[in-house]
């Protein structure tokens, strides 16, 4: 599945997007965040405060307990500050 990062999540991870293949035991957005945090220091830093991170699946906002099965694109970003 494709993962995208924005704003300081992108800066901390050090890339704007990548394709990942988490194990089948990773079923929800919060489980995916925990799994990503284990991929190295940059990820651990980006996701050090998981409650602050917002997520979207296929361009729609989702909650931490949302299932990731079937997702084409998952995005992680800080709270929005547009407008």
């Amino acid at each position, binding site marked *: 599945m494709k993962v995208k990062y924005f*704003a300081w999540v992108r800066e901390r991870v050090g890339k704007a997007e990548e394709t990942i293949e988490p194990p089948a035991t990773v079923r929800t957005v919060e489980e995916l965040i925990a799994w990503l945090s284990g991929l190295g220091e940059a990820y651990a830093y980006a996701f050090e405060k998981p409650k602050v991170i917002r997520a979207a699946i296929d361009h729609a906002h989702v909650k931490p307990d949302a299932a990731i099965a079937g997702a084409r694109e998952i995005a992680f970003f800080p709270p929005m*500050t547009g407008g």
Partner: protein
Amino acid sequence: MATPVTIRIQPDDFDVAREIAALSHGRTDIGAVVSFSGICRGDEDETKIAALTLEHYPGMAEEEIGRHVDEALSRWPLNGVTVIHRVGRIEPGQNIVLVVTASQHRQAAFQAAEFLMDYLKTSAPFWKKEESAAGNGWVEAHARDDQAAARWTKS
């Protein structure tokens, strides 16, 4: 006739008068047009700002704004809606965002414009980075913006 809706995300500035005219010109069913222009300020909580850089999530930004425009159209009798959000580097005094709403009556136009702005602030995927004498940093979300958006939640 379907209500004309324009949603654009662009680095270029916009022309408020042109957008108002595009919604209302030649029509005699519109009684009220409200425009909101959000402008880059030169200081934020006492810090002098040199510029902002706006990042967005292409694809989702347009869709998320579109969902809120649809919601506005279902709540108020609108004759037209335009939302333009700039991205890239923006200096103090320059435009950031424009919302224009047209309706027969003023309350619908005012409320729809406020509703759209409140949701643009809290749910459209845009992020501001500030350049200031203190360095560059991402703008933090304000609790007051979440509160402003929460008042539109149907109970």
